[in-house]
């Protein structure tokens, strides 16, 4: 899995948003927001050529105090969301 490069993660007023800066038109009325955990993972993964759910779990375990099964469940959910919203290629 690889994250699409046209999205830029920005933090505006404590909100993490993904700006499709590579597109000609950026529609702020329909923008994707991330929660802090997803934003952390995005930041770590956006420059990687490829990653799997295992990579995500590893990152999460390093940063947060959480047990492996919970981390895996969360990561899978985040990844499913990203795929569904067309953020991965």
């Amino acid at each position: 899995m690889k994250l699409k490069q046209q999205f830029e993660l920005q933090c505006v007023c404590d909100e993490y948003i993904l700006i499709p800066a590579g597109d000609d038109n950026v529609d702020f009325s329909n923008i994707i927001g991330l929660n802090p955990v997803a934003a952390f993972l995005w930041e770590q993964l956006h420059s990687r050529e490829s990653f799997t759910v295992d990579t995500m779990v590893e990152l999460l375990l390093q940063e947060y105090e959480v047990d492996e099964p919970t981390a895996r469940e969360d990561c899978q959910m985040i990844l499913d969301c990203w795929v569904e919203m067309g953020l991965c290629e």
Partner: protein
Amino acid sequence: MTQERRKIEIENSLFVEQIRNILQRGAEKSVTFTVRGYSMRPFIENLRDKAVLVPPRPPRIGDVVLAQISDDTYALHRIIAIDGDTITLQGDGNSIRATETTTRERIVGTVTAFIRKGRYTSTNSRRWRLYSALWSNTRHIRAFLLTLYKIKKRII
């Protein structure tokens, strides 16, 4: 984590920074955003309609622009006069005595279309030009027309 739709309100000056950041990347760039405020009534309604903004074009009377009108205030208003570098703006829905001034370099972008009640209207379209001409030519009865509009909004 689940997907949900929610509204995020961003303070104007921070939001304008985001818009400027995108528009500075090239002439082909544009941004779409939901309009806040009542000053462009009756065509544009608070939180219902959207504007499509492109990098600043040479200003013309009648254009709607997003511009800085004081240190921390921005307005999406219509150009009603140009005098050298001084540009006078006015909201369609404001009193004809209420104007603001800006300069060419304080214009963040020019509106090329509005999305009103979900319908796309280019500022080049006959519909928009007709509306603009009518609205500008009825300035003397603007207060009366706006009162009618507010009453109609309340009834519906």
